């Protein structure tokens, strides 16, 4: 493994960054371990899991995400003129950023 990473502008201590990431990963794993131990093997507390039934595959957060995707985002994706609409929207955003006067000096 190469200890430093030299670019045209910077020299980075590659191994130091890896150590930071590995430390973060260890902390993350420890947190997961503690959570799992406290909630009886599930990332969601056992009390909440009972409310939604034990045989359910998807936890509540996933159900909400799926609903957000199918009910709110889905109809937009199905529009035949979505591509045109998104280009118009992008153009408006750029027009606002380019022509609005207030804000950044």
């Amino acid at each position, binding site marked *: 493994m190469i200890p430093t990473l030299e670019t045209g502008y910077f020299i980075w201590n590659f191994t130091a960054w890896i150590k930071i990431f590995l430390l973060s990963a260890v902390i993350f794993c420890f947190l997961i371990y503690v959570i799992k131990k406290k909630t009886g093997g599930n990332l969601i507390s056992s009390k909440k899991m009972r409310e939604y039934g034990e045989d359910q595959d998807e936890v509540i957060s996933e159900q909400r995400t799926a609903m957000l995707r199918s009910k709110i985002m889905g109809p937009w994706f199905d529009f035949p003129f979505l591509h045109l609409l998104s280009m118009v929207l992008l153009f408006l955003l*750029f027009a606002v950023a380019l022509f609005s006067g207030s804000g950044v000096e």
Partner: protein
Amino acid sequence: MFLYRSLPGIPLPVLCLLLPLAAAFVPFGFFLYKKIKCWHKGADFVCDINLRPLKIFFIVVLTANIILSWSVWTGMDKGGTELFVLSSGGWSQTLSPGSPMLIKAVLQVDVFGAMSAFLMGCVAFIAGLAAMADKNDTLNLSKVSFFLTTLAGIQGIFYSGGIFSLFFFILISQIGASGLIYGIIKTKEKFRELLWYYISRITAMLMFLTGSIILYYNYRTTNIAVLSTIIKLGTNEKLAYAFLVVPLLFLFVKSSSYVTDGSKRVFFAIRAQAALFVVFRIVFSLYGPLPGLEKIPNLFILLGLVLIFVSLILTANEKDPVKFAEAVELFMKGFLMLSMGISISGTYTAQAAAEYGFGAIESMVAMWILFLPTSAALSFVCCTLKQQTEDGEMWQHTGLFRKIPLSGAAFFFAICVIAGIPPFVGFPAKQFLYRSSSYVTPLLTIFLLVSAMLILLISVRYISRVMFGKPTEAAEKVRNGDIQVMIPLIMLFVFLFYSTITPSLFINSMVSPSVYSLLNKGQLVNAIHQGGNSE
């Protein structure tokens, strides 16, 4: 006669462009020949062709393209730019000072473009190999023709120095890409069905053309190097900015429709990468940090955040592998867009550039280079999972690792690169961005780290759901699932693995020279006016 005389001294980049473009017309010519022959005989039209010569022809063109683009890249100075001018005396690379010859420069190749063309040539070759091995959708004349048209268009984008020539090559690549998705439209019903698609693409092309015309009308040139030295931001220039950037950003984000052919998906990824290349050229090389564009970085950061957020929602509960791959690609696009915003904001002052600007640009270019091989690997794996089995499609089963181990490993490797997990090559690319984003706000860094972690968790869960567990009965009967994409996956793996074990080489040989040439704003023109030659 003039063309004949100019042939012997033809420069390599021009040859690089002409080769796939000419080759694209060969299958088309053959198709016409067969049609005329049948019409002459009064028989029904049947275009039967021996696949072997077609495959050999296709692979020879792609191989020659790699060799030529490699020669162009290695022949360039570090961070240099070369002009190729066709005049009455043949091809030359020198320009006299004070002459308007720059406008007539046919091609303007820099290290960034040359490196991109080579990378794209390699991935196109890999996609070509996959297309030839595909037994479900075998290679035919129109497919080869559209592949090569797209290739020629994208090659031209990388070697173009003017906005009009960019428009021309974007148009060619669009024709190729549309043909790859929908083929040749023969019925009115099919055309009506695709009407909105064609309207949106024509609008995108017209918007870009409008931007080019505005700049030409004001400055009498569309050469990016010349324009960058004389451009002053007024209402017209602001309008041109929006007209030039918006269609390309759209083509970058929505590069393809739902396609289950891995090789076609790779070509769409190539096209998305080329679209962002044009945006880089306009944003960094043409306009740069002009007063009046201070809000643009925030807009790019906002768009990046939206894309990352949408991609996380789309991947969270997705079962279909192709849609999953599309959503993961969207995640990469979000990171790229965000890094672009930070990069632009970091070029306004010398202090900002020194603190985080250059780091952000290096990160942006590194992620841009990695976008293509990783999305290609994802495409191949996810299209393999879409294969039909006795009981539904492959992804609907479990315990597939024993049947498609290479796909499983490639998917895991690609995801680690995308999430930026050390020691994979995505890590050096992303660490610059994490450092730079902390200068904008530490909250942004935390958001990026958390989203990278989430995409890793979601993807690992997705692949482990398919690969591990008790194999179903139908999964047991799957035979040689990833044999068709074995060679392409190994080649992509070699690139990613090599970059992983030698990150310094990856950054120093590919990223840094590209950053230098991207920011080499108008220096070529200044050198010509001061010294006399392009050298």
